[in-house]
């Protein structure tokens, strides 16, 4: 049985890199007695794969991993069991059965949502105006950037890879709220292309804008959070390719 697990990565867990998160879950599966499948051979490993590695420093409400199990209890019970043996910063949010033929998460992922706000202490005078400037920049017909690849530099256009952008109020992380701190801050939501065909990182967009605006900001200026990962599903005759974006776990179903 293929299972897709959605989890969040918050607080100090943002300092834990992708490889260590994989090791973390391998051990968590054993602690929670998940009846996970192992590969054959002398050093068997768990059948487990992650949809999209998250850079160190970012938090997330929408991380995904796929596992294969021999047997399982209900989604509710499995979520409870894994969370019971988990650290504070990692919470399993959904545990769903995938159709046998479903693409694995890594192959399926097509887009991602990110929210971006200023890290307390790095705010410009008018944050909302700053983000509005960014939105105006993103509404241009094309956004050429130079992308560094292994083979050298390549020019690419970010514009068709940005699906949505809008202002919003972001909750400020609890550990970043000091006595006088506010609980909400102006920010922006970006829905951008993700996955193996065209992976855009939010930092690329911020860099492009800062370069255009002639600003040099600290590498620590922003708090960036991944909110969701999406896959394409047929459904909407209105859209260009007849596909709509749905969260990665919309592909599966809850086990009752």
């Amino acid at each position, binding site marked *: 049985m293929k299972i897709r697990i959605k989890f969040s990565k918050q*607080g*100090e867990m943002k*300092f*834990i*890199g992708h490889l*260590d998160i994989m*090791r*973390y879950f*391998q*051990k*968590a*599966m*054993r*602690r929670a007695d998940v009846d996970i499948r*192992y590969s054959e*051979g*002398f*050093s*068997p*490993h*768990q059948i487990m794969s992650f949809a999209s590695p998250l850079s*160190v*420093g970012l938090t997330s409400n929408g991380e995904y991993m796929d596992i294969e199990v021999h047997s399982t209890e209900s989604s509710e019970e499995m979520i409870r069991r894994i969370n019971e*043996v988990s*650290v*504070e*910063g990692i919470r399993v949010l959904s545990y769903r059965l995938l159709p046998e033929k479903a693409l694995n998460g890594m192959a399926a992922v097509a887009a991602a949502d990110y929210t971006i706000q200023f*890290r307390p202490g790095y705010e410009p005078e008018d944050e909302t105006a700053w983000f509005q400037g960014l939105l105006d920049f993103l509404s241009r017909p094309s956004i050429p950037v130079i992308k560094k690849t292994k083979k050298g530099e390549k020019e690419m256009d970010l514009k068709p890879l940005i699906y949505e952008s809008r202002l919003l109020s972001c909750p400020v992380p*609890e*550990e970043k709220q000091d006595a006088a701190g506010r609980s909400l801050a102006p920010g922006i939501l970006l829905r951008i292309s993700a996955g193996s065909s065209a992976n855009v990182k939010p930092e690329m967009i911020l860099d492009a804008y800062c370069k255009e605006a002639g600003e040099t900001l600290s590498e*620590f200026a922003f708090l960036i959070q991944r909110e969701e990962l999406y896959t394409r599903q047929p459904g909407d005759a209105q859209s260009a390719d007849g596909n709509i974006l749905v969260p990665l776990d919309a592909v599966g179903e809850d086990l009752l």
Partner: protein
Amino acid sequence: MRKLALSDEILLSVQQPARYIGGEINSVVKDPSRVDIRFAMCFPDVYEIGMSHLGMQILYDMFNRRDDIYCERVFSPWLDLDKLMREQDIPLFALESQEPVRNFDFLGITLQYEMCYTNILQILELSKIPLHSWDRTLADPFVIGGGPCAYNPEPLADFFDLFYIGEGETVYYHLMDIYKEWKRQGKSRKEFLEAAAEVPGIYVPSFYDVAYKEDGTILSFTPNNPHAKEKIVKELVVNPDDATYIEKPLVPFMKVTQDRVVLEIQRGCIRGCRFCQAGNVYRPLREHSLDYLKDYAYKMLKSTGHEEISLSSLSSSDYTELEGLVTFLIDEFHGKGVNISLPSLRIDAFSLDVMSKVQDVKKSSLTFAPEAGSQRLRDVINKGLTEEAILSGAAEAFRGGWNRVKLYFMLGLPTETVEDMEGIALLSEKVAETYYDEVPKEKRQGKVQVTASSSFFVPKPFTPFQWARMCTKEEFLEKANIVRGKFREMLNYKSLRYNWHEADLTVLEGVFARGDRKTGALLEEAYKNGALYDSWSECFHNDIWMKAFETCGLSIDFYTTRERDMDEIFPWDFIDAGVSKEFLKREWKNALNETVTPNCRQRCSGCGAMRWKGGVCYENKN
């Protein structure tokens, strides 16, 4: 949510921020305001080394079982963070609460190897605790040391308020009770140390005066406080099943050296190798019962989710119920994605059978530790491994499909001759030849690969070799050259590899291993000039140390190459480690006469450890 001691900016700038954030699975969370004693347990090296150490986890678990104590962990910040902490004046903190170490009641530092001594000074300085015990006030924690190097604590005497000599499970609770009472009464620092000095196993260095002879050796070592004991007898757990072990080991986020469940099956060793400090000071051998180990194996695998379990002891093959234990582990856990690793096993039919079940033969290598290249020298060091045993073990292994062998040796052992050195190459060659003799051409899986490594011998306190002369750096390198030259003459040269340890580092280790109080100034001088993380070859700067010897007016030869008189008072002689000085003298003479001493199960050699009335000394004697 806890507030971290370091900012995002710092944590995102340094290598491996996971070293500094705590919060791992099974780390203990308590409200610091609701405990009586805060104990900072420190391993003075980087996180991934310290977190691999079993003893620290045992004590962490033991202290935290008490509601009135909160034990937290402290490690050396790596060089990148060390620099930032100094620049930005950030005090060193403990991982659990992220609060400054200086606010704690105790700073306990485990002393596992001499070359971490400069890191102890780093810990003190970054914590803003005065380096010297006499400069500390009621605002500072008590600094207590323990672990194997506490068997000669004298190089560190100036920096510690007290030392705990022996196994930690016995009197720490008692010491904490005394502390609580002292704190309640609001007395002076000295009054606590006086009360502590009366606890068995506790050594308060400031309560002793050392006088030296003109030649630099010790004239007298005498208590200067009525509460101080004449002799400090090591502490020891008589029945290991009575001691608590770890039920919930910490599970680091980052990959640490020991990324597995470690099950300690026994303490001590019956073998009596004359160079080995652990084999002497942990006497007598005491085994855990099979039921105790089964119970803990379950609990620890369940609470950690580790994919590997490893047995820990000085010589696992001597554990009487090894077969039952290994069979249990294979039956219960193998096939459930749990690997079983079996270090320090004698290579024989049984161990090869077990290994072929739990390891991929093609990928693993066999390890032998003959320690010396000739039978003569193996008799001198009392290493009971014969050439015949090595070659027959290797032959059996080769037939079973293995083709990689590692051999461990020491150079610079007492009485060593050129023949002994060349024996390292000859024995390696014989192992290679065994492969070609035993495995028919059509069955060979490639070439055989024999890797011989030699470390340089450092005489250690409480071993029969504590009187031995240690070699100079030049002598060590000359010896390694002789061995290398002999390897080149071997027929199967291309199947053999030879490497050797760093000589500069070994010499310094030798100085501190048998060092006296005078070497404390040397340590401080080198630290102030930038010595840190000396056990990391990329950080080690020999020139700093050489200059420090000069500045302090100390001679390397005095501590290393000097021939010691049989009646010399050694800096560590005030400790009673269980083995008597008479036994060690006898063994030193036996070594020089090339006389083998049988192991504890063959015949008691009257080392002195029997007085604890337990362990191997009382096997079959109910």
